[in-house]
């Protein structure tokens, strides 16, 4: 499968077991936060044999495609609940997935459906799927920059994900 990269290291084939997916629109202000966190993680995990980082700009079945074949998946997306201060990072449970901007707003299926679909079809779906949401302030203006509070949350977001994928 394309999603799993095999690296030959000292004669041993290493299989990447964890995938981290940064989800978002890179030119829509805070909607880009998931993608930007993924980019920073890519730098932090550059020598990792076990963790694959991906950037995705659409949810639905593309997420299913991207996580197939991995044992663990961590997804980062912008949220707009209106209930938390912008920049707040939270582990989202499945009940709240409707507020994840790109995960929920798919043109085909949402994440729980996509996961079930994958399992139904015998695509190897991860046993462990975690979704981190970062509360956005502005997701309505085109811009390549994050707003201040969201920008300031990035180091903490990166650390939280690192702890999650490398306990």
């Amino acid at each position: 499968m394309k999603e799993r990269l095999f690296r030959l290291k000292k004669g041993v084939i290493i299989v990447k077991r964890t995938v981290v997916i940064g989800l978002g629109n890179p030119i829509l202000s805070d909607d880009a936060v998931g993608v930007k966190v993924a980019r920073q993680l890519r730098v932090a995990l550059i020598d990792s044999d076990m963790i694959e980082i991906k950037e995705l700009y659409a949810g639905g079945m593309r997420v299913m495609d991207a996580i197939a074949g991995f044992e663990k998946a961590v997804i980062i997306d912008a949220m707009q609940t209106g209930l938390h201060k912008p920049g707040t990072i939270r582990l989202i449970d499945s009940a709240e997935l409707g507020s994840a901007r790109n995960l929920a707003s798919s043109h085909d299926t949402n994440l729980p459906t996509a996961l079930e679909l994958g399992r139904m079809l015998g695509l190897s779906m991860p046993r462990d799927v975690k979704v981190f949401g970062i509360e956005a302030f502005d997701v309505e203006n085109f811009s390549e920059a994050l707003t201040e509070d969201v920008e300031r949350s990035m180091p903490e977001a990166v650390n939280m994900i690192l702890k999650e994928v490398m306990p």
Partner: protein
Amino acid sequence: MKKRISIDPITRLEGHGKIEIFLNEEGDVANTYFQVPELRGFEQFCKGRLAEDMPVITNRICGVCPEAHHLASVKALDALFDANPPGAAKKIRELLYSAFYVTDHTTHFYALGGPDFIVGPDAPPSERNILGVIRKVGLDIGKAVIECRSRNHHVIEMLGGRSIHPAAGLPGGWSKSVSEEERKEIAEIAKKNVDFALFTLKAFGDIVLKNPAYLELVTSDIYLHRTYSMGTVDDKNRVNFYDGMIRVVDPEGIEFVKYPSKDYAKHIAERVEPWTYLKFPYLKKIGWKGFVDGIDSGVYSATPLSRLNVSDSMATPLAQEEFERMYQTFGSKKINNRFQPIHHRLATHWARLIELLYAAERMVELANDPEITSPDVRRIPERIKGIGIGSVEAPRGTLTHHYESDERGVLTKVNLIVGTTNNYAPMTMSIKKVAERLITKGNVVEEGMLNRIEMAFRLYDPCLSCATHSLPGTMPLTVTIKDSTGAVVRELKRQ
């Protein structure tokens, strides 16, 4: 007598698609308003950038149809830089685009629009999705859908450089040619696509058309609107997704106008309404008469059904057979030796499958065209004209990119009319019609109301993400019903 209702200044909506229904004193529907939040600043975002960056900027507007934006953008640049691409480049673009159409229309049918029929419009939302479809028709179908997406994403990657956001488009051509090995692989994939399209059409026939309840729904007048139709056609008046002239036919099927995309501003104007940021395109020469049907109203539709309505025939043989079958099923008569348009909006789902078949057959044609492996894929631009307009048929409707630049190629103006925007007025009308059926004399038929309104949306397959450049969504929807004093009578919410 209808009481005049004053509408409150628009409050900005956060994260929800909103429909507001206003009742008159008798408790019947007076007006319906469809509101979406707005994304702002795209033109500002683009001004000052290099025009040649636009194909990789605009393909990020939306993760659903980046290919459409990429190609419309590249065509606008062809015009801006006055560089007509070599034949092979155009064919490669069209081949990539056809593969994209196969994935898009397959996904829409099995995951979004199809479930309404295959599982049923009154089934719970948790079942009205691809899982419900699979439970009904079998696991093999699910696997076939995934396989179809996968092999066509592979084609897009081969031709376009990246799977989700193609990046190979250049003013005057394409950045890579196709090898013989790639061509062979694509030709094989194209054949599989044709088989799958035929299978899907048969499934639609068996499940939908042979079911009296569904057939009644499809042919009923609840989703019937007699408007003008718009689509892009080749020199034989057959739909072409990549290139051609934009053709508009009236509700009876008589050609109203045919124009090259660069003349769009002569024919299309945009209506601004106080209750939404979205603009409503309409035919300038007819004029804006409100959200009404008919030959005297400038409202038009641009959907898969519209595209077939403006076509005299299909450019590929199997699709042509299906085209004839559909129009005959609806009892469509011929005028000037062409079928009169179908206005039953649910037929859009059928039209979409005919387009799926056409896209697959077109892939076979292009993959077997000797010019497709030509190394001559680029004409280097030599000058900047300063204005460039390019359009393609996006799955959701005619998509137009309009760029203006200075003598260095730095953008000074950007205007986009995206697929769904064309249909905003018809969508509003469809919602109103459903509401009128389900609300009379103040009685609201709640059961299934939300579903039937959503069905009106789904057939247009709106990409609200693009249309206002709004918040994406399928769709946390709130329907608010207000009486003639403006008080909220009922609020229906989809979480």
